[in-house]
């Protein structure tokens, strides 16, 4: 049986049917594409990622003086450009075809960087995950969450709706969001500034001596869990919310003799735990402020 025989008469139907089912469902340019780049660095590198599309950014560290960027992009409708200038490495994704749908605009990045690296990462909806990196970092996301594990430095996190989980972080942390939550767990941070309009805040850990801690939520819950060995001055205020003091036995009147003038238009709680070495300011407009000692 030759080809012309196959393609004639009733034999052609099964062939066409098979061809139809074997035909790829998506165009060739929509297939995920992988990239991998290696950048040798000398000192402490600065890595900048601007992900205009959507996707996850994951950063881990190693002891080598090399930055490895691997990633996938969903289609040719999004371009990924990399650039190295000395110890600065820029990775930028951009939409090159405005007809791209959200699935085609996705770009995910995995980075391996030296332990001491500065980071500037920006994405739209994907998760930003950073682990065991020391260095200043600026992390921006619209709806994506930010997870930090064992990082230290001056950390600035800004989201619109994304939440922050910061585990075993050290240094200085600033978080600003509209509806995102913030969880700071087992930190060694000496300067903390957490701001969210409708999200919740949880600080579960020790207060470093001489540390400054400011946490405020417009409508959400602000909860602080401290240990019995902590030492801090507390100032908690809410305009229309409530202050839930579950640590009354640990909270003593301010031992430094500072005058606290409580506004008659807000509910306030002042006190000192231990010798009052650190300073903790908690505030909420209409949410609850809860203070309790960890078990």
């Amino acid at each position, binding site marked *: 049986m030759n080809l012309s025989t196959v393609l004639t008469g009733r034999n052609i139907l099964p062939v066409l049917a098979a061809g139809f089912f074997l035909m790829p469902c998506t165009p060739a340019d929509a297939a995920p594409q992988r990239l991998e780049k290696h950048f040798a660095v000398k000192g402490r590198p600065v890595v900048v990622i601007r992900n*205009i599309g*959507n996707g996850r950014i994951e950063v881990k560290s190693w002891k080598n003086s090399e930055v490895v960027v691997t990633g996938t992009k969903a289609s040719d409708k999004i371009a990924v450009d990399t650039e190295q200038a000395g110890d600065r490495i820029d990775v930028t994704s951009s*939409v090159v075809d*405005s*007809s*791209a749908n*959200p699935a085609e*605009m996705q770009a995910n990045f995995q980075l391996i960087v030296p332990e001491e690296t500065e980071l500037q990462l920006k994405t*739209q*909806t994907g998760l930003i995950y950073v682990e065991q990196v020391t260095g200043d970092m600026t992390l921006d996301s*619209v*709806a994506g969450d930010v997870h930090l594990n064992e990082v230290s430095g001056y950390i600035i996190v800004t989201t*619109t*709706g994304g939440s922050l989980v910061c585990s075993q972080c050290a240094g200085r942390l600033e978080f600003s969001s*509209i*509806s995102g939550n913030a969880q700071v767990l087992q930190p060694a941070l000496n300067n903390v500034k957490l*701001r969210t*309009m*409708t999200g919740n805040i949880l600080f579960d850990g020790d207060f470093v001596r001489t540390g400054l801690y400011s946490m405020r939520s*417009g*409508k959400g819950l602000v909860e602080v869990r401290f240990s019995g060995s902590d030492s801090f001055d507390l100032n908690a*205020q*809410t*305009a*229309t919310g409530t202050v839930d003091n579950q640590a009354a036995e640990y909270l003593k009147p301010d031992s430094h003799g500072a005058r606290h003038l409580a*506004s008659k*238009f*807000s509910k306030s709680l002042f006190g000192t735990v231990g010798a009052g070495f650190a300073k903790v300011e908690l*505030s909420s*407009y*209409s949410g609850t402020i809860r203070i309790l000692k960890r078990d």
Partner: protein
Amino acid sequence: MLCGELEVVFEQEGLTPLSPEARQHLSECNACKHYFDDVTGIVALASGFPAEVEPPERVWISIREELQRENLFRPKHREAKSWWQSFEELFWTRGLATAAVAGMLVIAAFSAFQEPRTPVLEARDDPFSSTVKVLNQQEHDLDNMRLASTTGDPAVDTSLRQNLQQVDEFIADCEHRVKEVPSDDLTREYLTNAYQQKAELLSAMMDRGGSLN
């Protein structure tokens, strides 16, 4: 130096450099120190706003078409622009509008903290009215931009819109409280921050709309 004299120094000479007398007063007066920190913070925030960027031509075309469709605008041909029209066009750029919001907030902060407040309700001008006006104008501009923008991730757009709604609700809540209790400084602080966040959010949404065109 008295509190009133320090305010005159701020108005006439700016926030820095401060004279030794002004610094001495700040170190002794908590109210002025608090006020100085607030204004300095707002100015620092304003300096961080993005540089002025002209929106793409298609945005203006879309706005013009929409205004014509609603009979709110008729095109004038070959007519020399007045100085006021030129100024109006300049103000339409979102970078300037954002900076204007920051400027209004500075003025509002001056007004809010300058005069000693009495604990009774009093009929006085709302120091935030100019800020609210500019923000509403920006929001209106954003609605027009949405007409021109058809691409983008719906999940991101939805998130931004939902957050804008939450900010608006929070602002309404705070404004209501401030009307009821004008001397509630904590609420005023939250309200000021909410205006700033709204300005930043609108700016981000406009940038996003522009970048997709």
